[in-house]
């Protein structure tokens, strides 16, 4: 499976500012995803990061608020723009990899970025 390095691990930001989170993978992967995990809640998919094209966003998430870049098969960034306290959450990068049975069967997560907006 792939190893993911995500940074920063945590940050405290002022409302109205933006934060860019980086996700570096130790091998080339086709599928990369960004999730949000609000305090005490489960994971919600924000978007699929597509290499060479615009990210695919889930309902309730828009590009202006969460712009995503994917310049190559090992790296992606998520920006949380014009932050408000409601954006305080853990943001996680994830990649899909094959378990050998066929299709994208395994999903590895980074350790997450804990964001607090004050």
């Amino acid at each position, binding site marked *: 499976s792939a190893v993911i390095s995500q940074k920063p691990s945590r940050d405290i930001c002022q409302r109205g500012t933006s934060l860019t989170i980086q996700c570096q993978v130790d091998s080339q992967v086709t599928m990369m995803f960004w999730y949000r995990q609000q305090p005490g809640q489960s994971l919600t998919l924000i978007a*699929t990061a597509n290499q060479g094209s615009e990210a695919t966003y889930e309902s309730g998430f828009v590009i202006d608020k969460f712009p995503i870049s994917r310049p190559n098969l090992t790296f992606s960034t998520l920006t949380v723009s014009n932050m408000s306290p409601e954006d305080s959450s853990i943001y996680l990068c994830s990649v899909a990899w094959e378990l050998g049975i066929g299709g994208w069967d*395994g999903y590895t997560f980074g350790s997450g970025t804990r964001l607090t907006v004050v």
Partner: protein
Amino acid sequence: QKEVEQDPGPLSVPEGAIVSLNCTYSNSAFQYFMWYRQYSRKGPELLMYTYSSGNKEDGRFTAQVDKSSKYISLFIRDSQPSDSATYLCAKRGMDSSYKLIFGSGTRLLVRP
């Protein structure tokens, strides 16, 4: 109704107990199911995955799927304090998005 429902707990058991964690799902357009374990301040790590109905065993862990009742379970035998974590069930459909849908997670505490 959420696609994957999971009791949030917390569930507290003594060391050595058998733990049963459960999820139900509502959409039949599934491909397979996974169980993740998440320690505090860490990302989720894949514990087990299963494609079909029945049981799948890996060491102290057994994953069980009952497609007729849309019920998935994770059993932990001889539970250890190091098993204390949040356990998340997830399912993935066979569409092209490869999107995972997670339950809310069950927090487990194994008391020494």
